[in-house]
């Protein structure tokens, strides 16, 4: 009570007081919506999730590349680079950038589109250098000491003339020259598919199982909950690992694996809710009026426990997304060339010394998505059940 601001105790002018007193009363759902909209992180999260869904569904359509298109000549290109401009005779200049990790020069245009790999002369293996001829200028790429540098004919080091974003591959390319952005978008598709399936499974199996156990009660409840207890003793990750070993990697297997064990928490929550609700008077009233079991369950008990159900759903989505990326990371997820955020990260770990951009983007994508779902879950919990507010 101590945190009521002093100005809150001030007397309102009569007109305002009348407005406050006459404010229309809100239904439960109107109130929920109002509270949710007042929660900034939750609103931003909803916007992010909608954008992510749109990007995952339509994004790949706008790209000339697919997740499997390889271009080994343009492998490991960063998302931003320092460009050099060299006169190449007849008043033209050639723009290019130096990939400091694989000592290749790539030609770019002045807006940052990657045109291709520049061919140099034979590499001088002994001096660790390679000559490149542009019209009448000759440059030498000297990589005998790191970082590699470009040297003009008179021995002076050439400084980069500018800096540019990569317009062809916005997020760069991976070690096989595949577009990282497109692969990320496909990763988003996979994560969202998994999230969707986990939600469906929770919604149908979890609610059905928990609702039935809670409603019937007695011995049936005891046995059903023992089964849940046995399943819940081991972390779900272990089951998913076992199932993935049996099914062999692939998108469908991971969906089946996650779906087959992911309803346990929901079943417990729903059972608890039903158990506490079914002794309420209105249930007894409905039964006296001759309502059938299924009617009592679907029209009385479930609608009244919808709050915790929705909260649990949003809390389970990030953990489903996490398990998929985790499985993919340890090599049990989707099969190449399909990309998931987990496989993208684990592939990037091998090359992160030279090409950190390959690690950064998938790591950021999964983290942001997890943030969004977590904030949304917190927001929904606060909005649906004000008692939880802290």
């Amino acid at each position: 009570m101590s945190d009521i601001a002093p100005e809150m105790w001030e007397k309102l002018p009569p007109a305002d007081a009348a407005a406050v007193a006459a404010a229309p009363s809100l239904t439960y759902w109107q109130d929920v919506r109002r509270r949710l909209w007042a929660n900034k992180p939750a609103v931003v999260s909803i916007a992010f999730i909608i954008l992510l869904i749109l990007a995952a569904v339509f994004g790949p359509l706008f790209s000339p590349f697919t997740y499997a298109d390889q271009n080994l000549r343009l492998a490991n290109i960063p998302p931003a680079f320092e460009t050099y401009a060299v006169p190449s005779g007849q008043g033209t200049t050639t723009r290019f950038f130096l990939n400091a990790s694989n000592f290749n020069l790539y030609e770019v245009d002045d807006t940052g589109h990657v045109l291709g790999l520049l061919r140099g002369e034979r590499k001088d293996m002994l001096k660790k250098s390679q000559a490149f001829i542009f019209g009448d200028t000759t440059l030498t790429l000297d990589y005998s000491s790191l970082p590699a540098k470009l040297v003009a004919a008179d021995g002076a080091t050439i400084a980069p003339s500018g800096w540019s974003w990569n317009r062809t591959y916005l997020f760069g390319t991976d070690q096989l020259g595949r577009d990282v952005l497109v692969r990320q978008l496909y990763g988003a598709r996979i994560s969202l598919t998994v999230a969707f399936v986990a939600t469906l499974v929770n919604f149908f199996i979890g609610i059905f199982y928990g609702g039935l156990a809670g409603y019937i009660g007695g011995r049936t409840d005891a046995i059903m909950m023992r089964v849940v207890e046995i399943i819940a003793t081991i972390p779900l990750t272990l089951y998913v690992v076992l199932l993935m070993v049996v099914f062999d990697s692939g998108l469908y297997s991971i969906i089946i694996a996650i779906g087959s064990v992911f309803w346990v928490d929901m079943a417990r929550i729903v059972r608890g809710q039903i158990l506490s609700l079914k002794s309420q008077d209105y249930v007894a009233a409905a039964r006296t009026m001759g309502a059938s079991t299924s009617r009592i369950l679907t029209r009385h008990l479930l609608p009244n426990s919808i709050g915790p159900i929705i909260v649990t759903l949003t809390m389970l989505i990030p953990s489903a997304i996490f398990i998929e990326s985790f499985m993919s990371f340890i090599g049990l997820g989707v099969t190449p060339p399909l990309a998931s955020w987990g496989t993208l990260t684990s592939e990037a770990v091998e090359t992160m010394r030279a090409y950190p951009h390959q690690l950064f983007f998938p790591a950021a994508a999964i983290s942001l998505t997890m943030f969004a779902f977590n904030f949304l879950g917190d927001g929904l919990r606060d909005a649906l059940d004000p008692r939880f507010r802290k």
Partner: protein
Amino acid sequence: MPAYILQRLGMMAITLWAIVTLTFFLMHAVPGGPFVSERMLAPEIEAALNAKYGLDQPIWAQYLSYLRGIITLDLGPSFKYPGVSINTMIATGLPVTLRTGLLAVIAVVALGVPLGIVAALNRNKWPDTTVMLIATIGVAIPSYVIATVTLYIFALRLGWVPTFGLDDWRGYILPVFALSGFWISFVARLTRSSLLETFEQDFMTTARAKGLRPGQVLFKHGLRNSLIPVVTILGPVVANLITGSFVIEQIFALPGIGRQFVLSITNRDYTAIMGITIFYAAALMVMILIVDLLYAVLDPRIKLTSAAA
């Protein structure tokens, strides 16, 4: 109490049996035998291998002999490394996993609880906002992302810690941090909210009214009553640290059980997968039992009876 422990042990035995049975039949449902590989084996050799490992017997006989093995604590031989038993595999990996896991649990308690206290004491002021911001980030970022990104920053870029191995104490920092990051954040959040709830209780007002020093009020009355939910989640913490270690041990190349497990998965070493899963399950159930018993010791109001189970 003894009756309660007995009942719990009985339940554990049933659960373990269910898990053994499940893993056994799952692993035998895998298409192709354990010796199917790119190299074609001569039929005689395959028959000899099958006979050596008892795979020529009917499935129920194999199942019974596997169960017999479990009871005598023998998890059987590895199919991929001749002469290596699963017991040795676990025994070699256990010290590493145990050490990092224990350090991670210590980090969770030693960092998570104080952070939560600081946040609760400074409610809605900057320390609270900072802790909650960090905790929110920590809960959302997957452990393997923390591991890889910190590895890149602190080991590759700054060179403060080695990139792999446990040769000196600095090698432990990143794995333990990556392993415990989520749970430090989670425990900080939990401690904060539980402490705030306790602050509103009448006995706290009484304690303050009696004129106790703030430290006494906080530690003797506040903290003791708000740590119960924290103790409760220590069971799941252990479970999570175990599964988290698969990927952490792989990233940091630590020779623990988690890495062994991931390796067995990639090698399709079915007996190893089975054995390590069962080991994990057993270890986990023992941990959860210990936590439950601890719970009753900390809070005398909780009585462990068979009915409560």
